[in-house]
């Protein structure tokens, strides 16, 4: 068993990778070593006193943290493997920032005191800023400012909690502070109302980073909810349903493949939150399992779309097609991921969605809404697969059909993820028993369940066939709620202009201010 401090030190080494060696081929191996360390880490609670002495670091690895650590290190390992070929040869610092992201996410998961939790929370946002800014500095800056503001709300909540409880250890918070914590954590976790940064960030970031963003970083919000707000079931149910529906509806009408995937992340996050709010062990297990699965298949989807973009140069669904001939590996892995997210047996999405549905057995309204969401998911992924890979538009025939498959490192990463989708679907016990989640006595392979599953698939494909024309990707700018947030911005520039106008540069005015202030103070104090 590896001590937690060793795991943390090893991931800190990855930050210095570009400095230590220029041979890029070594980088994925180091990340693989971190993955191995993550699997064998000891589940214990230690206090590391010499980190930020005299504040120290309370490190806690329990079953929940272990689950997240395995997911994180695995995903980063796959992304590092993929990035070996995907990232421009000249840019090795990317791997250093990737290591920073890894360390920061690890820090968030293992911290049991609020100081370090907050420190690494901010560091995650900063690492993502560094990763996105190479190609899209504007987007990176906007992302960071939004996350930093959310972290500011979180800081306020932490401090008020400190006043209430008198200590800085991570734990469930009491009533009135819950709203502040929800707002603070929700900015990173992309809950509805604070989700507006997500489509832009995911679309404009490099695909490997979108994979990590969607796959892991927004899940840190869920992690925060689990640790800090353990019994807010009603709220989570409502929020989850809202997010699930909203995400699917917006996703259906996108023309850019990555924006479609980004809105789906919101939808699946809604699923997870619904499962968290179900109140019983089945639903919550399903939520956590869906968290893992979503990371795997959504990550795979982003990597596949990224592979298409790598060869084709665009991710616009209007320009794709014919790819099933030229890029078979990408097509197959993408198909696996699409089936998983739609919840089709025997892939992992089926297991987790069934678990969540069983967990919410007593609320019929929600079950019906879930069915609607499932159909929507099926429809949008049929759209993605059809227009992305299987369609045969004449105009793109030569260009698309003559592409080469992606390099080995990228396809290897994608295939591993697809295999994980399959295996965690066929053998849920592998992950469920070894981590924290108990054995759930549901027969996933009962004939009735499989039959209804196949019926859903068939019905969905049929609806797509008839609705093909409606769902064709068209260029349409769909305004999300950030339209309303932007309306507030002119107020700030008005304040700035007024204040700037007050500083006239005229010495007389400055002296008058001074003596006015003096008079006011003297009158106040006397």
């Amino acid at each position, binding site marked *: 068993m590896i001590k937690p401090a060793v795991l943390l030190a090893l991931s800190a080494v990855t930050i210095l990778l570009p400095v230590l060696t220029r041979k890029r081929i070594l980088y994925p191996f180091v990340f693989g070593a971190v993955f191995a360390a993550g699997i064998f880490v000891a589940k214990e609670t230690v206090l590391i006193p010499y980190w930020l002495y005299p504040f120290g670091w309370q490190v806690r690895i329990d079953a929940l943290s272990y689950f997240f650590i395995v997911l994180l290190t695995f995903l980063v390992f796959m992304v590092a493997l993929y990035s070996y070929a995907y990232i421009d040869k000249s840019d090795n610092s990317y791997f250093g920032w990737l290591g920073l992201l890894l360390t920061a996410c690890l820090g968030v998961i293992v911290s049991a005191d609020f100081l370090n939790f907050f420190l690494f929370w901010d560091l995650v946002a900063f690492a993502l800023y560094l990763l996105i800014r190479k190609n899209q500095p504007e987007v990176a800056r906007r992302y960071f400012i939004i996350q930093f503001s959310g972290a500011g709300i979180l800081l306020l909540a932490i*401090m008020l909690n400190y006043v209430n409880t008198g200590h800085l250890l991570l734990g469930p918070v009491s009533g009135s502070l819950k709203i502040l914590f929800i707002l603070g954590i929700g900015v990173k976790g992309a809950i509805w109302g604070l989700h507006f940064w997500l489509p832009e960030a995911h679309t404009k970031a490099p695909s490997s980073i979108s994979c990590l963003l969607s796959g892991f970083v927004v899940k840190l919000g869920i992690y925060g909810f689990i640790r800090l707000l353990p019994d807010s079931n009603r709220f989570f149910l409502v929020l989850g349903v809202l997010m699930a529906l909203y995400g699917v509806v917006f996703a259906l009408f996108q023309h850019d493949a990555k924006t479609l995937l980004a809105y789906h992340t919101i939808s699946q996050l809604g699923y997870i939150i619904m499962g968290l709010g179900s109140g019983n062990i089945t639903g919550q297990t399903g939520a956590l399992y869906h968290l893992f699965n979503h990371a795997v298949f959504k990550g795979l989807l982003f990597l596949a779309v990224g592979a298409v973009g790598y060869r084709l140069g665009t991710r616009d669904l209007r320009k794709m097609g014919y790819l099933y001939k030229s890029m078979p590996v990408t097509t197959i892995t993408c198909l696996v991921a699409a089936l998983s997210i739609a919840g089709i047996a025997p892939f992992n999405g089926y297991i987790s969605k069934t678990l969540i549905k069983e967990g919410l057995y007593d609320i019929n309204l929600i079950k019906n809404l879930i069915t609607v969401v499932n159909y929507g998911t099926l429809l949008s992924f049929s759209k993605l697969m059809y227009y992305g890979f299987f369609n045969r538009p004449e105009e793109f025939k030569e260009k698309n059909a003559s592409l080469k498959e992606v390099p080995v490192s990228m396809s290897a990463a994608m295939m591993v993820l697809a295999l994980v989708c399959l295996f965690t679907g066929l053998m849920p016990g592998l992950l469920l028993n070894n981590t924290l989640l108990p054995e759930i006595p549901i027969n996933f392979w009962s004939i009735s369940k499989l039959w209804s599953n196949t019926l859903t698939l068939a019905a969905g494909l049929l609806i797509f066939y008839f609705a093909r024309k409606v769902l064709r990707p068209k260029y349409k700018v769909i305004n999300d709620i950030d339209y309303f947030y932007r309306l507030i911005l002119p107020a700030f520039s008005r304040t700035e202009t007024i204040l700037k106008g007050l500083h006239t540069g005229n010495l007389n005015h400055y002296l008058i201010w001074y003596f006015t202030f003096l008079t006011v103070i003297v009158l106040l104090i006397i």
Partner: protein
Amino acid sequence: MNHLPVLLIINPLLAAFSLSLSIPPARKNYKIIIGVSAVIQFALSMAALLTSLQQPVHYHVGGWPVPLGITLILDVSSGFMAAFTSILFTAAVLYSFAYIGRGKARYYYVLLMILWAGLTGMVLTGDLFNMIVFIEIASVTAYSLVAFDETSFSLEASIKYMMLGTVGTILIILATGIIYSSVGSLNIADLYNRIQGIPEKPLKISIALFVAGFGVKTALVPMHTWLADAHSSAPAPISAILSGAFVKVGVFALFKLMYNMYGWSVLTSLGTDQLLINIGAATALIGGIMAANQADLKRMLAYSTISQVGLIVMVLSLGTLQGLTAGFFHMFNHGIAKGALFLSVGSMAKRAKTNRITGLSGIGHDMPLSYFGFTVGALAIVGIPLLNGFMSKWLICSNLIQNGHTLHGIVLIIVSIIGAFYYFRVLERLASPAGPDKKHRETSYGMFVPVVTLAGLCIITGLLPYIPLVVIERASLDFFSYNSIITGIIGGF
């Protein structure tokens, strides 16, 4: 080692006077004289800090006993401030060797050394009027150094600074007069014992006058108007010193009077602590908002200084020991980071021959070391984790909210977010790919050592906050219990 306080003040004065003699050795070898003097001063202040950690030194100038004579107190808080200003000054002197051209350099170094002596005297003295004298020494040299470049902007900034500053000094002298006429003593520790007896009106008026008078020196709102002009028109090392050390020493002096002369309970009963904390909040907000709207990089940094000083004043006005620790820590962190910022901007602006942000775009590629210093300083002030600003902002926010001032905690958070906004905008602009018509500018020489050292200090303090914190905790303890320490040494008046 008992003469250490006086040596700290005399050493730079000696260097200045020897340099101002118009003899050939002074004219040709000024760099050697100043370099040696700076190294000696740095060593002396570190020695002073170490000595004060063992036991405070109490020096009677001229041998006159208290309360007749002037005393110099070297306890951990004074030692800490002296050491901290020495770090900045040494970096600035090293930087100035490369930055200031030969023509007027002698006068520059004379003024710089006198400024150093003035600032060190301000923190070391235990006598009220002596503090005014040192304030004036430091201020007058600061006025001249701001005007050093003799461009229209520098002169205009200097005259504005001078007028506002002199009025401030007049108010401080008036307040001292009121205190002396009511009490009859000028020693700070002695005054603490006697100030209970004076009638209310003079007490209140003197507090108001002190706040207004020191407010100009430390650029509290609405007396901050000179700082943006002065710090943007001064030569880069002078901006670094003024922003990094001068305003901090001013805050230190103000709060020394508030804590150790009046006693914090008096201030609480008058409501002055509430006034001070609100002034601090207003300063922080106005500084932040103004900084977001500037086209000139050095002016933006100057408004950022105003903002951070507002935060320091907010947390020092709480009246608690932890508040003092957080305040001193932020003084140290901001001083180091702002020093790195101004020095790196100086070298970049000198190459690009402009101070405007649009004119400096793309320069990060040509001057990676200076850009590294700038980045570390900017990230430190914004509050990125693992750099020193994060820890001090955390401590300030914690202290504010723990003492019930939630609204002021929110002000700190808002100021941080605005700070992230304008600092990141500049970082992006400096690193953007330069346009095809820009000339290729070479990297700076010899000026990057101080920048990189200060940046490295930021990083080290961020990862190991223990190193300054252990000193700062002792410093705040000594500051808080100043009067009992003095009484312990002298045994009563």
